């Protein structure tokens, strides 16, 4: 019966982690709505997450749009359906690639930096020091970062959508010989508000996931530099997996009514 032992142990560890994460989430979210609010920190985090992620997100989106136009063109030419390139590009970018690629890229950037920052604060006792200075660390550290993530991710994805479609346009017009005005008209005709909106809702959820994972792993890190390193890795990995997982769940919810 020994082979059951590791399975049981893994199950228990999993349940313990799930419980701790649930409590952490509930606690963090409750602090979002109760004063005092740290607007100065919120502002700084919004700039860090929103503004400074723009280059990463923009570069990802433009290449994604470009390669998408190229791939769909070569793929569809087998069925003489090259005309659908504009449709494919705008639909894939707004529904899927915008939110998911931006989410994953920012998960690497923001998830890692949050986990490292908060983890370092944990192991150097700065979080303990906050408590002794009449400041709740959940309210001061975690709540503003969650809000900044939920607010700024949709903005980033909107930018990614625009740049991604532009990337597709560049390749279609300058490489594949489409007529620019026609391409834009086709894109515009095919674009539905629902596609963009669903992408933005996904983005808000991903923003929550990324900041929550960064804060959670940082907050519970222990054991010096090595512990902070582990926390950083775990934050990025878990955020990326959860993004893909929730992407599926949300897509089910939006498009299979």
């Amino acid at each position: 019966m020994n082979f059951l032992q590791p399975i049981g142990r893994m199950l228990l560890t999993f349940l313990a982690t799930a419980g701790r994460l649930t409590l952490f989430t509930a606690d963090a979210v409750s602090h979002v709505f109760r004063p005092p609010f740290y607007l100065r920190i919120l502002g700084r985090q919004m700039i860090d997450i929103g503004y400074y992620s723009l280059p990463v997100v923009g570069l990802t989106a433009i290449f994604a749009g470009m390669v998408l136009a190229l791939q769909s063109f070569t793929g569809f030419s087998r069925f003489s359906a090259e005309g659908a390139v504009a449709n494919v590009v705008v639909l894939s970018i707004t529904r899927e690639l915008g939110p998911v690629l931006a989410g994953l890229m920012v998960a690497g950037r923001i998830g890692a930096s949050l986990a490292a920052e908060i983890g370092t604060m944990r192991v150097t006792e700065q979080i303990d020091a906050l408590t002794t200075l009449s400041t709740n660390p959940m309210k001061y550290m975690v709540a503003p970062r969650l809000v900044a993530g939920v607010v700024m991710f949709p903005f980033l994805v909107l930018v990614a959508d625009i740049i991604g479609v532009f990337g597709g346009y560049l390749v279609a017009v300058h490489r594949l010989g489409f007529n620019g005005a026609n391409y834009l008209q086709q894109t515009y005709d095919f674009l539905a508000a629902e596609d963009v909106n669903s992408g933005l809702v996904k983005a808000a959820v991903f923003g929550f996931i990324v900041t929550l994972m960064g804060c959670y792993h940082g907050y519970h890190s222990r054991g010096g530099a090595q512990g902070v390193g582990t926390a950083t890795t775990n934050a990025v990995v878990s955020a990326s997996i959860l993004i893909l997982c929730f992407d599926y769940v949300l897509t089910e919810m939006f498009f299979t009514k």
Partner: protein
Amino acid sequence: MSQSQPKISLENVHKAFGRKVVLDGLSLDVGVGESVVVIGGSGTGKSVMLKCILGLLHADSGSILVDGEQVIGSNTETRERINHKFGMLFQGGALFDSLPVWENVSFGLLAEKRVNRDEAKELAISKLAQVGLVAEVADLSPSELSGGMQKRVGLARAIAADPEVIFFDEPTTGLDPIMADVINDLIVKTTREVGATALSITHDMASARKIADRVAMLYEGKIIWAGPVADIDHSGNEYVDQFINGRAEGPIQMAVRA
């Protein structure tokens, strides 16, 4: 000891990390306005004791009373109310490296909205002067300071909000002897003149003699001796004798092999 209720009263406190027992029935009273120094070997649980009082670690059992109010198992509101009375100097400084020095010093006051940002900076500069740091330091980031300077900023932060009780975890470690004595004087001044209660930890016997009203020695998770500072040289306790004289031979065996 005064007859009135002690400011802090620890009774039979236990704390273990897994199988490692750190505090094993620790009892200690600190009277109002009294300065108690806890001495003891490295790793005996002195910092853990402070963190249990501050609620940063949860003691496994026993009782910790602050002004007669139970700390162990208290809810967040009680906890926060009690913590308002406290100032703490962490052993490692624990300065916020995302904030300039002056915001570190006045952090507690700003958090409680007792001052605006202009007043906070002025106040921080005056507190920094008390620990021997010039005004230019106020705008630096903590990472630009030497270890001893960081310690003094931590000290300034601990006393900035004029707390009723101040905990000093090794206030003079890492300072030169002259600056150490300046800090000793500052601690004496804040406790004797302002009337704050102090619970300090130190390995520095010169400092202990200067700042303590009473000295307590922690060994194997318990307070094995406590008495007025004047008595430490004739405590009649061989553990205390060995510790204050810094002898390698004696009842306390260090876990080293030659």
